[in-house]
């Protein structure tokens, strides 16, 4: 077991956004968290990234409680994330965005950077190499020096994910990674997620509304509605689960 949520509860004022949620994610899984809008899925990711504080519950990663960590320490622990609405550094190039994703792994301090000491030069070369390797995998090498804000939304989404991958996290949190992508791009991203799971051994916790992608690549799925987990299981089980159908489509009115 790589990652575990135990009785996680998050409240905003009087509203309970996440209610007693428990999840277990095994190594090398693609775990999808689905549910209607407002179900509290993004809040779960924000709680894991330490952007909001749960009122109750535990978040355990590799056996250690990460609730004590500050937001910037989460990535060092091995958990990286992408954002629903793309939180890129818009005025930076793609390359610089990716290099920034490597921040926690680089060690050059103020002095070695300012005087361009060998450590700094070596690390910069290494950073460029890693970024290029990732861009090659995504066949986006040609846009390395473009400013991010000039890119189409689909490319921005991919850069957002690539940036999170730069630090080679053990657990990758994806918040609607293919929203706004066309079917061809979606298919390519799906293949890419499977590839990083299999080749790099990265575990993925993904929020996504695109059911065909979710059903195709997920190893396990949990469904949330109004802050509660209403179902969990294999893709086949979820597809035919009565509570899930009810949450998405509503209850059939038997009297009609």
């Amino acid at each position, binding site marked *: 077991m790589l990652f575990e949520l135990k009785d996680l509860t998050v409240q905003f004022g009087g509203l309970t956004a996440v209610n007693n949620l428990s999840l277990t994610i095994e190594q090398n899984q693609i775990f999808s968290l689905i549910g209607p809008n407002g179900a509290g899925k993004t809040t779960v990711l924000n709680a894991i990234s330490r952007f909001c504080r749960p009122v109750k519950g535990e978040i355990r990663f590799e056996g250690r409680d990460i609730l004590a960590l500050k937001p*910037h320490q989460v990535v060092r622990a091995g958990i990286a994330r992408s954002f629903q609405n793309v939180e890129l550094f818009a*005025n930076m190039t793609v390359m610089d965005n990716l290099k920034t994703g490597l921040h926690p792994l680089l060690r050059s*301090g*103020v002095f070695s950077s300012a005087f361009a000491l060998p450590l700094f030069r070596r690390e910069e070369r290494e950073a460029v190499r890693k970024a290029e390797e990732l861009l090659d995998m995504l066949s986006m090498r040609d846009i390395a020096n473009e400013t991010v804000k000039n890119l189409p939304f689909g490319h921005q989404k991919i850069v957002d994910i690539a940036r999170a991958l730069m630090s080679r996290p053990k657990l990758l949190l994806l918040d609607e990674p293919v929203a706004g992508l066309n079917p061809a791009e979606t298919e390519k991203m799906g293949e890419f997620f499977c590839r990083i799971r299999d080749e790099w051994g990265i575990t993925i916790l993904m929020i996504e509304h695109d059911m065909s992608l979710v059903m195709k690549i997920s190893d396990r799925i949990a469904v949330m509605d109004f802050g509660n987990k209403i179902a969990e299981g294999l893709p086949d089980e979820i597809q035919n689960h009565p509570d899930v159908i009810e949450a998405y489509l509503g209850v059939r009115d038997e009297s009609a």
Partner: protein
Amino acid sequence: MIKNVWNRYRNPTLFTLLLMLIPAVIGGQKHLLTTACMVLIYSIIAMSLNLLMGFGGQISIGHASFMAIGAYSSAIFTLKLGIPFWIALPAAGFFTALIGFGVGLPAVRLKGHFLAVATLGFGVAIPELTMKWDKLTGGFSGLFPEKPVLFGYIFKSDLSLYYLIAVVTLLCTWLMRNLINSRIGRAFVAIRESEVAAAAMGINVPLYKALMFSISAFFTGVAGSLYAHYIGFISPFDFNIGISLTLLAMVVVGGFASIPGSFIGALVLTLIPEFTNHVAGLSLVVTGIALVLVTLFFPDGLVSVRKIWQERLKKRKVVSKHAL
């Protein structure tokens, strides 16, 4: 291969040559050489303020106070403690950096207007402090720092002083350029662009904000030290809030997040008073008009003129191709 090397070193080489040749161009005109020295000193400060504002997205309305701390600490180190100039110069920088870190701590919690007011308070307080603490600072009558001495050589002539300032300027520029292109600089820009994403990338946002102030203060302190030993006299009036606002104007006129822009800004705002001081009050009017015009027509600063020009040329080429 040779072309790559040339591309990489072209700008630094040309810039170094330019700075080295300026005295030859100016010839014997002493007041122009003085102006050149002031432009370089203010360029260092404009660059360091730009590091904070243009790259880091923070604001400081009291930056002349860091200059004051650098100038006074360097003067006090040399005059009262007998420390040689070549140690006092970086020591003044480090001392100012320490103060800068302290000033940066409120920046961790304050944003936008609130940070502006807090740094404004700092900008007003330090000149006042140097005025009142006359045992240490000489109060109204100021201090008379000695001319720089390096390994027994006294920088007495204007020409030798110019070259000293030019070398320190080049060194500061090189250091800042390296910093901007490092993980530290990327972290600064990341904080400017999105604090949430910066934190998610593992950047310790509060620490880096304080660090930004500290690094900016370091270079401003070094420039303050140069100023003190170059002019040979410092008083609280040299670092008042008016100077702070001029420094701010240099960054805006030159261009945010640009090293060449900082030089252009410092050049323009040093030259304007130089050429308009024969009529009382005229320089303020011209400065004001220049600021309005630049922000109106070149919101990215004067440094963007070249880019705008290139784009216009490109368009014209495209148009003429279509005409054929």
